[in-house]
């Protein structure tokens, strides 16, 4: 009895002390869809988290939960984080959109930042990167490099983000190689190395010699390497360990500056709900080094596209572009508006197959 009492009061004293110490630190939570060691999407978000820690030191405390399924589980994890005193929570997958909004309603004093979503609230910001700009660069390389004229594309879920990437890559591959054909496989997962490897093998068996992916692991690179004469691109992260071949370039997500800026806003007390969508120009999308496996003239063409996107003189979705069913979308010289891009649910003309509904 006495011992229990003693332990309880000791625990309470500790709790109070910890509470006092926590008062002037800002707690930042991260909810990840995959493991931090996936080498792709989640890995880069975690690099951003580490950058926040490095920037603010003792001023912040970061916590993260990895491998959180998109659904009720996500809501539970976010609620737990908010209850444990997080001031700012980054939820880093499209499927967390509704859970984030739901939890945000219950915790009006906690700030939320949802990656790649479109629903906002007074305490919910959204942020995303214009990956389609990077895919325009990769599509250019893919169109030049393919010899079989078959480019394989591993899609995750049929959401606007992924469809946009397919369209952008296809338009730019087509521009430099009119005979190019895309074979698209939907994996219905963000992260499942065995399935991604199978998908890559299937595409290679069916004639693809270039593989683009919108899933998070490096399994397709490994499969391409085993097949020999196939090239791939790093996705989300540089994946440089697979260079100079099969990985010939990559799209890199650089979240660190954004995470630092938003954390600073919370610390300074001037955080506001915003919608951020930055690309190559702002540095949120990076293009990993184009390896020596790519001929010099192709590399030059790719870098030229990158430069023209970065300085704003070129938009990857510039007309004339028709939709898959032959109807007009963009007239000569017209560029796509952000609203259409954000909700893109159609293929452009020339792509085969249907988007799963």
């Amino acid at each position, binding site marked *: 009895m006495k011992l229990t009492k003693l332990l309880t009061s000791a625990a309470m004293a500790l709790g109070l002390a910890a509470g006092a110490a926590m008062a002037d630190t800002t707690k930042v939570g991260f909810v990840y869809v995959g493991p931090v*060691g996936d*080498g792709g999407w989640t890995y880069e978000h975690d690099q951003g988290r580490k950058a926040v820690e490095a920037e603010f030191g003792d001023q912040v405390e970061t916590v993260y939960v990895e491998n959180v399924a998109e659904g009720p589980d996500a809501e539970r994890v976010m609620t737990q984080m908010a209850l444990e005193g997080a001031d700012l929570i980054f939820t880093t997958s499209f499927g967390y959109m509704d859970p984030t909004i739901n939890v945000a309603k219950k915790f009006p004093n906690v700030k939320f930042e949802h990656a790649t979503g479109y629903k906002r609230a007074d305490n919910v910001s959204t942020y995303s990167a214009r990956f389609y700009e990077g895919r325009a660069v990769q599509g250019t390389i893919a169109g030049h490099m393919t010899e079989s004229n078959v480019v394989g594309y591993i899609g995750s879920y049929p959401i606007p983000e992924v469809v946009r990437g397919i369209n952008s890559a296809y338009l730019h591959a087509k521009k430099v190689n009119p005979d190019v054909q895309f074979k698209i496989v939907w994996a219905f997962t963000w992260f499942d190395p*065995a399935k991604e490897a199978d998908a890559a093998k299937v595409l290679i068996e069916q004639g693809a010699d270039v593989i683009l992916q919108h899933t998070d692991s*490096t399994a397709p690179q490994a499969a391409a390497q085993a097949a020999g004469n196939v090239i791939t691109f790093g996705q989300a992260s540089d994946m440089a*360990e697979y260079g100079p071949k099969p990985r010939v370039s990559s799209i890199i997500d650089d979240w660190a500056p954004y995470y630092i800026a938003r954390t600073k806003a919370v610390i300074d007390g001037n955080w506001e709900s915003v919608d951020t969508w930055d690309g190559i120009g702002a540095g949120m999308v990076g293009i990993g080094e184009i390896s020596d496996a790519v001929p010099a003239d192709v590399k030059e063409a790719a870098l030229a596209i990158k430069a023209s996107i970065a300085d704003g003189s070129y938009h990857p979705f510039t007309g004339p572009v028709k939709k898959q069913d032959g109807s007009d979308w963009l007239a000569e010289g017209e560029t796509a508006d952000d609203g259409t891009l954000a909700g893109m649910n159609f293929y452009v003309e020339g792509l085969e197959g249907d988007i799963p509904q």
Partner: protein
Amino acid sequence: MDLSAINPVLLIASLMVAATPLLLAAIGELVVEKSGVLNLGVEGMMITGAIAGFAVAVESGSPLLGFVAAAIAGAALSVLFAILTQFAQANQVASGLSLTLFGLGLSALLGQSYVGVKPPQMGDIHIPVLSDLPVVGPILFGHDIILYFGIVLTAAVWWVLKYSRIGLVLRAVGENHDAAHALGYKVLKIRLMAIMFGGACAGLGGAYISLIRVPQWTEGMTAGIGWIALALVVFASWKPWRALLGAYLFGGVTVVQLNLQAAGVAIPVEYLAMSPYLITIIVLVILSADKSSAPASLGRNFHASR
């Protein structure tokens, strides 16, 4: 749609590869459950085998040594489960689940320095003449040795369970541990061996993913295959050959649906995604004439004093 893009020979060959980790893990778990123990930690033992096998293969340069290490690691982890459930009388379901969580965490820790490392290649067997035969060659004679080992293991487990004395004793322990104990069989010892065998098989299955099917190390790379293996044991109604059939069906559906998609067949993916379950139901209905059921002592703890 261009069905001619699908090469049936390559399709069968790659579905065999996709099925092998599942088969190995399921055969191990089948033996464990036959002895009356329910170990839900298959996923954890697989992922531990995946990293242990990967690490040893990379360090030693020998994939075969990697597989040996994976089997040892899987068995070692299963000993933890055995101590908890067989000697400390802990609840088997809870212990199995925590074994999975433990395995996932441990493997992530061990694997930190192996992300992005390339493992040594495990060459496919090449038998002159036979491997070069059209159709039959790539399907029957063009794989790695572990794939054949999985099939041989299935046959061996079937034979041992059905015809050998040790198999009969194992089944007796699984059906009625009190009776087996009364007859003088060492129930705990037999279950310990079965659990370790199951762990070793799960470890091999995991290493097959990290060394051959993918091949690389990524955290969480078994992605639920251990759970499918558990379901497969029930699907197979605790019979080895049915486990083989089921593994090929489950593995096959994945590969076939990816192939159909790449060929542009407009079957909604949802139908393909649910097909393993449909197949399971159909097979269960067909097999319902078969009255064999789960081992009677499955999941029940044994203590000699009771």
